């Protein structure tokens, strides 16, 4: 293995490890951010998410000005279509049912949580299901594409991103400052080794820019779940696997400044996608595991009410399907897309709101 390949693997494990550790300590739950607004009228985690997005916005734009980002916007930022919103809404339902988003279910799995592990299994199943619908769905998405070839608001408006970043960051900065002064950005809790979510948010923003600099993209992991489904299907039902066009797509095709070429897609091979995403996934689980063990909070318990287990599995399936339909998950769109005013990111996030509302209604009924 050559040095650029090794360094990207090491960087992935490291970035994921820090993310997993910090998210476990802060219990950084994006699913609850949207859900609790409706369920308990609590906006705490949404305020923290705003802090994360604005910090990432400033970091990404600085990195761009310094010439640290080889690609801008990042590859796979995506086409603008109603699929982004529909995917976001479905994803919102799924993450509330699953009790965590794609990162949430991963870090909770790392801490031994059984429903979260089922949700991860669901994510793989849902991503595999998408392959069955891909031809129809992508035809639908393609026929409604707006501004072909463009992904971000600055691209559509033909302006330098800083013209948007400046005012938005300034206004949000004032709002965040007021919230902080009013004590609305901190949470009091008696748990051991707590990391305040605002600090976790800043660290995640920083990890996002490091990921972009190192791997050419912000953090994302869900294509790997489709790849997982592809690997299982190709060994269990090879004929059916080869009939699915989705697994032959290779949306990623870039060459990093190190000379490393990253190509790949959801197919059942080790490629650019697995090189970037597998280490990240491993890192998140390992980081969270280390965090949990170090404060004696690793637990694996099977005795969970069956309705919750069913909700977790179903939520995972819905999230997996939605993340391929959008395409992209909440981490990709909220922590990567929103900070660069990516329109798919904005539409996906807008979709999360009604999705989380519906998910909350369903959840309160089945518990």
């Amino acid at each position, binding site marked *: 293995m050559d040095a650029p390949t090794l360094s990207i693997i090491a960087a992935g494990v490291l970035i994921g490890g820090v993310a997993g550790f910090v998210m476990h300590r802060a219990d950084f739950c994006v699913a609850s951010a949207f859900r609790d607004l409706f369920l308990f009228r609590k906006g705490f985690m949404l305020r923290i998410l705003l802090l994360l997005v604005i910090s990432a916005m400033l970091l990404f734009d600085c990195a761009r000005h310094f010439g640290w980002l080889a690609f801008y916007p990042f590859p796979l930022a995506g086409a603008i279509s109603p699929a982004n919103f529909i995917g976001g809404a479905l994803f919102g339902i799924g993450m509330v049912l699953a009790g965590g988003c794609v990162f949430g279910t991963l870090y909770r799995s790392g801490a031994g949580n059984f429903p979260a592990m089922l949700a991860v299994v669901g994510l793989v199943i849902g991503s595999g299901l998408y392959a069955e619908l891909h031809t129809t769905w992508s035809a639908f998405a393609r026929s409604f594409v707006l501004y072909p070839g463009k992904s971000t608001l600055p691209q559509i408006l033909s302006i330098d991103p800083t013209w948007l970043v400046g005012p938005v960051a300034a206004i949000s900065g004032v709002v965040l400052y007021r919230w902080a002064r009013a004590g609305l950005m901190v949470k009091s*809790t008696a748990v051991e080794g707590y990391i305040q979510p605002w600090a976790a948010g800043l660290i995640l923003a920083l990890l996002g820019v490091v990921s972009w600099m190192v791997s050419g993209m912000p953090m994302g992991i869900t294509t790997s779940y489709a790849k997982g489904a592809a690997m299982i299907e190709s060994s269990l039902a090879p004929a059916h696997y080869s009939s699915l066009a989705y697994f032959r797509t290779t949306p990623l095709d870039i060459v990093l400044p190190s000379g490393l070429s990253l190509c790949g897609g959801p197919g059942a091979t080790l490629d650019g996608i697995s090189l970037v995403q597998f280490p990240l996934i491993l890192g998140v689980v390992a980081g969270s595991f280390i965090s949990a063990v170090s404060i004696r*909070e690793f*637990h694996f*318990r*099977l005795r*969970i009410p069956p309705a*919750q287990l069913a909700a977790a599995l179903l939520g995972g399936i819905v999230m997996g399907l939605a993340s391929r339909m959008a395409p992209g998950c909440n981490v990709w769109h909220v922590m990567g897309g929103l900070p660069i005013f990516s329109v798919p990111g904005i539409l996906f996030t807008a979709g999360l709101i009604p999705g989380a509302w519906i998910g909350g209604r369903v959840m309160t009924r089945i518990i």
Partner: protein
Amino acid sequence: MEDYSAFGRTVTIDIRGQVCPASLLVTLRKINEIKDDIQKNGARLEVLTDNRDSVGTISEAAFNMGYDVGTEKRDGGYMMVISAAG
């Protein structure tokens, strides 16, 4: 598991391993179920959880409903004791 002591009974719920928002919803439901007992007869509700987020949210919710909440770490999880204020 219900233990009738001289000071009022103690009701324990074990919600370890449960997902959000079930932890909070189950606890709130239990508080409402036995609220008269807590307020009039000095009963206490013990909640055993391993969900880090729930420790904060359950304490906050119970506190806002006018109860006293004590938290201690136990068996790698957290035991919260919800009782009448004062």
